């Protein structure tokens, strides 16, 4: 099985319109995400700069994994903005999973604005060999 990947560097997070509008006056961004298949499951790396570990919310409901991050960015006081290349915002993105993940075993770690999620496959879904009996 081959999974060909096209590399798309220098992408910028775009504003999302997937879900209901937030009441907070701040852009809602779709975080850049890397997803890779590892021998025991799936690993996700989600970029959410400006979001502290306490402000991350990961939920798994009906096979939909939703990641939310609230930005704690504050503008410096007594200074005028003169140049802006990014707008700090909240992050939200959802992925639909196959059914074979054990929600109890999902590990999440937030470091330097990147959320890493390790999702091991449920044991029932691990490949099992079936012995063929000779009759």
């Amino acid at each position, binding site marked *: *099985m081959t*999974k060909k*990947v096209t*590399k*798309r*560097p*220098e*992408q*910028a997070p775009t504003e999302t319109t997937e879900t209901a509008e937030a009441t907070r006056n701040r852009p809602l961004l779709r975080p*850049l*995400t*890397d*997803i*890779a*298949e*590892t021998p025991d499951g*799936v*690993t996700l*790396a989600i*970029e*959410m*700069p*400006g*979001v*502290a570990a306490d402000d991350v919310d990961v939920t798994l409901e009906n096979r939909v994994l939703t990641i939310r991050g609230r930005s*704690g*960015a504050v*503008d*410096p006081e*007594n*200074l*005028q*903005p*003169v*140049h*802006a*290349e*990014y707008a700090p915002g909240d992050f939200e993105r959802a992925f639909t999973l196959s059914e074979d993940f054990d929600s109890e075993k999902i590990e999440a770690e937030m*470091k*330097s*604005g*990147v959320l*890493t999620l390790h999702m091991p496959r449920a044991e029932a879904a691990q490949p099992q060999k079936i012995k063929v009996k000779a009759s």
Partner: protein
Amino acid sequence: MLYPTNLYRADPFSLMRRLTDDLDRGRPGHGQAFPPINIWQSDEAAAISAELPGVDPGDIDISVKDDVLTLSGERHAPDLFEGANWHRRERAFGKFTRAVRLPFRVDPEKVEARFADGVLRVAVGRPDADKPRRIEIKAA
């Protein structure tokens, strides 16, 4: 696309630049520079913030010479993805350098950098000798 005009009072052309940047974004080879930065300033100080998610603070170099602030470093790809099969690959890794020209000469003693949650914040101060001084008019 929304262009908040009240953000760009100091530079009327930045709005136009941003519009052309947005038009360029759709073309290949015209991606946004990494890291994206925001700049604030006043007569006495300036602040620069850069989004550097996944970069180790030890891998960031900040240097100041006269009025130019240079930001460089490297973002390493995490080891756990080595040899993995990719489903999605949106993030980029590698070396980066950005130089910013500030409106005044920077006092190297008055530079402060903080890195938290993947965002770098640099505060720079203007040397006292460089600050504009009010001149009083004496009665003849």
